[in-house]
């Protein structure tokens, strides 16, 4: 496994140890940022 993939999987495992509420809040925040970014990109 490449080093970058090892790091990614390790982070996934660490995230999976957090509460569902924490992960859900982070996922929602990320989705909002991405949608705002892609919306702004479409307008420009």
């Amino acid at each position: 496994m490449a080093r970058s993939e090892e790091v990614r999987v390790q982070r996934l495992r660490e995230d999976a140890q957090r509460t569902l509420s924490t992960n859900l809040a982070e996922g929602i925040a990320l989705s909002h940022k991405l949608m705002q970014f892609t919306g702004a990109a479409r307008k420009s």
Partner: protein
Amino acid sequence: MSGPAFDELLRRLTDADVQFVVVGGLAVNAWGVVRGTKDVDVVVAPDIDNLKRLAEVAVAAGGHVQQGEAFLGTPISIASALAGGEQVPIETDLGRLDVVQGLDGVPDYEELSAQATEAEVLGVRVLICSRGHLTAMKRAAGRTRDLADLEDLEATAE
């Protein structure tokens, strides 16, 4: 649209006593695979009163459904579309609410809710489908995105 607010959409559904289980991308997030998603996927209890409550929340949030050339923008028309048993994507000012139903490999509300886990969003509790149900649905859907999610979910379980 002022911008997506998935958390506010979930809060409003809960406050209106809509019976639902979160599936799809937000459930993937909750189980530890944090990635962006473009909608809120839910499986709902299919009784008509529940569908009406959901439709009212959606319309209050500027929601509408585009079905071919038909534009559905009232609670009764959206509840009627939901009662048809097919998947219904509802565009709202808070983001897209995708009511998942009638798809192979997706358990019904009763089965999902029995094994679901609660998570808190904006001070309210919402049901997240179980990891087992989520991976089974991802496997059944089988699209590239689903298989990538499945691989990541399995990596977190090892």
